[in-house]
């Protein structure tokens, strides 16, 4: 199956090494402002003055379909912004390794999965962000969330939001993903309890539940 062409590098297309390189570059001040300037919608920065950013800046993030004003530092990761800065705190996105190894902080950025610990919050102005809280609720589970519960695709549950988000991102982009594709898409997420076999079952059940209805029935 051919990979769809994507304008922005993401987990699928980017090697770990180039990802780390680009993330490292972003952390340097000079690149930060030039990248922001290139973003047509990246204007709500109130504290932007001169060529560099320092200290607290208030930005607006488009999170789960709602605008959130949040005060961050230029170095604040999306993960830290979600867990420590945004009100109310979005703690469903978990911090496990904080360096792009484990996928527990997986979020969806403009429809594609990304590690929130490897993104800077200030880079995400104007991007559509979705976290596990935006997919469904305890009273109204999304198809992926319901399938995870049905198949016991969770134990301690600490990796679970990351897997739920990654599975959702996979099936929304590839509604006909076969198991090998699902496994490849989930390869950036780690679980210690050993829920993988039941996650595979859940993903296949969710795929069926999310499949577009064909014909009149």
């Amino acid at each position, binding site marked *: 199956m051919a990979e769809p062409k994507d304008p922005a590098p993401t987990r699928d297309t980017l090697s770990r090494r180039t990802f780390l390189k680009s993330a490292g570059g972003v952390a340097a001040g000079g690149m930060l402002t030039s990248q922001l300037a290139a973003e047509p919608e990246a204007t709500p920065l109130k504290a932007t003055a001169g060529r560099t950013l320092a200290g607290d800046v208030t930005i607006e993030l488009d999170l789960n379909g709602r605008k959130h004003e949040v005060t961050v*530092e230029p*170095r*604040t990761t999306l993960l*830290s912004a979600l*867990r*420590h800065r945004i009100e109310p*705190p*979005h*703690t*469903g*996105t*978990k*911090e*496990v*390794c*904080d*360096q792009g*190894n*484990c996928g*527990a902080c997986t979020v969806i950025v403009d429809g594609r999965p990304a590690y929130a610990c490897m993104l800077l919050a200030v880079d995400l102005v104007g991007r559509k962000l979705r*976290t*596990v*809280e935006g*997919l*469904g*609720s*305890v009273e109204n*589970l999304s198809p*992926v*969330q319901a399938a*995870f*519960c*049905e198949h*016991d695709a*969770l*134990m*301690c*549950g*600490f*990796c*679970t*939001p990351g897997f*739920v988000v990654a599975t959702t991102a996979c099936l929304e982009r590839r509604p006909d993903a076969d198991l090998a594709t699902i*496994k490849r898409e*989930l*390869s950036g*997420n*780690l*679980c*210690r*309890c*050993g*829920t*993988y*076999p*039941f996650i*595979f079952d859940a993903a296949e059940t969710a795929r069926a539940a999310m499949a577009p209805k064909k014909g009149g029935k």
Partner: protein
Amino acid sequence: MRARSEPAWKPKKDLTVLNRDIPRVDGPEKVTGAAKYTHDIRLPRMVYARFWIHPYPRLNLTKVDVAPALKVKGVVYVKALKEAGEDVRYQGADAAIAVVAAETPEAAEDGLRAMIIEAEELYPPMVTAEQALDESSPKIGRGGKNVNVREERGDEEAANIALDTVDVLIEESYSLPVQHHVCLETHGSVVDYRGGDEATVYTSIQNVSGTNASAARALELDADKVNVITHHMGGGFGSKFGIGIEGSTACRIAKELGRPVHLMLTRGDEFLMGGNRSGSQQTIVGGASKDGRLVALVAKADRFGGTGGGAFAGLPYIYKVENSFFESRSIYTATDSSRAMRAPGHPQASFGMESMVDELAFAVGIDPLTFRKQNLEDPVYHRQLDRVAKEIGWDAHPNKTEPGAVDGTRQVGIGFAISQWGSRSRPGSQCEVRIEPDGRITSTTGTQDLGTGSRTYVAAIVAEEFGLEVGDVTARIGESAFPTSAGSGGSVTTGCSAPAIKDAAHNAREAFEARIAPMLDAEPGQLVWRGGEVISAQDPQKSLTWKQACAALGSEPLSAMGEWQEHLRSQGVHGAQAAKVEVDTVTGELKVLKMVFIQDCGLVLNRLAARSQVNGGQIQALSYGLLEARVHDPDLGLMLTDNLDDYKIAGVQEIPEMISIMDDDDDRLAVMGMAEANCIPGHGAIANALFNACGLRLRDLPLTADKIIMGLSDRS
């Protein structure tokens, strides 16, 4: 009120809730991110604390200046935990030199960077067994020694004499590295103290009822004024029995500041000081007769538990050997102490024993399945081995008594291993079942859910008693203020808490029946609870809905306590493992194709959660066998694997086809824990399967491609 009759588990055929697949009750909270773990607790005016940890194990501190951190924006608290002139004796908690607390985690990190800490590094770092065993090394271990003999068992002289009589004798060494628990939620606490004489301590701990006393001590408060809360926790696996230096430090900062404190270890700190499974080096001399009897075994095992003693289950492991001698020693290094980890000591002993058994089987020319059964007395193992052999396809497999060839192709092999676990339990656990007039029913006990699914059976046992759905019962767990429950170690949780829950449900039902039986013209004990109704056994026309029955309570709820009942639990788990692997004899790539594990555990409370536990145990063993190893640089003394990039755990691509079977031929109508036997034999079975595939016997875990390719080239 005490029961008029003894509680008893219903026969399996009569159960409507238990012994079935029960989706866990906290699933919806966990899949939506609504479940709040200790990491996720957010409180007004809370500060974030971090340790300054020196990476080198042995130091003489020459300068400890924490004051510069106070000038950092956002930092509100700094404290030196050690002073200049003091020593650091080992890597991990003893190397926590200072602590900082700040308004944000980032500011806390800034504070750490501002501190000036200097030290003289003492050489050698004492991070390897070679350094510990070197005569010229400093003596750093317990009792001023680097080596302690821990256990001797059997008659060495008699075993050696017996070894002289055997037809086949094999002497080999087997080794396993130190393994980390890698709980995805690191150790730590959030201490809610804002002045006054009460506090709430949120902590990621597998021993909720046993923790408020130590937290209260650190806070200098009365134990009954401190509530310890673990509503959800991101794994424990044996490493989370106490609040540790991270918890007691959080308590002291909170007491000094009068503000809530969030102190969770970073991932790097977790590797340095969060505990581990001790490594092992074993020398085993085994002898068998040519008809396949294990005649004699002399085994010596070293445990590498850092500053701790390590764990080792003893040899021979399970198999009957006519003459044996076993000695085990602790080798101390200046590294973090080993802790209990899922079946402490057993995965190590199992690997040595199962490898030796396999070597002897092929040496005498008897297939490894038959050879195992010949040396196992317990018929449970016979039926379990036969079952996994069937599921893995042993009958049709070509390499029964000879391994496959190294011929440049991919070769497939099958291996076996077995395991055992005591799953003992003890008195002390309690539960309260409470029925409200509006129909609400709660089951409350201080137990914790590490991810095992215990919360679900806290509700399900009560639902079974009253003919309700699991969702009708609210399970309340994870607070030290709740009725006492045992810590979760050694698979005791189910055996300790389930009988108390059952007893509470039974007592509540009897008390309830005494109240409502007259309304149904029936006697207490002559009522049937089924499908959300209570029905007269004599006259099925007479019934009340659950709501009607509860409303009959009037204005006061009905509450009943339950205690641990010995007859409701049993002990003794057996397990058998088969693994099928494929090895590329050109590249050395080893892929596990399939794993099958069967175990008994008496009455299975929740078959779905039990299979999850068996999957998880097998995967952790696979991970230990293929990937995991703590690595130190012996000269620099640094831990090279203090992150999830360098310390590998099994991921999606390593997962084979997995079959997890509950042994339904077990007719014990009693409960016991079951999460340990399944993590013991997997890596041994995989190593045996590798040999079966291509004739390469690797005796040193993990089974990485470099070792395989070197081993294959040595053979050819």
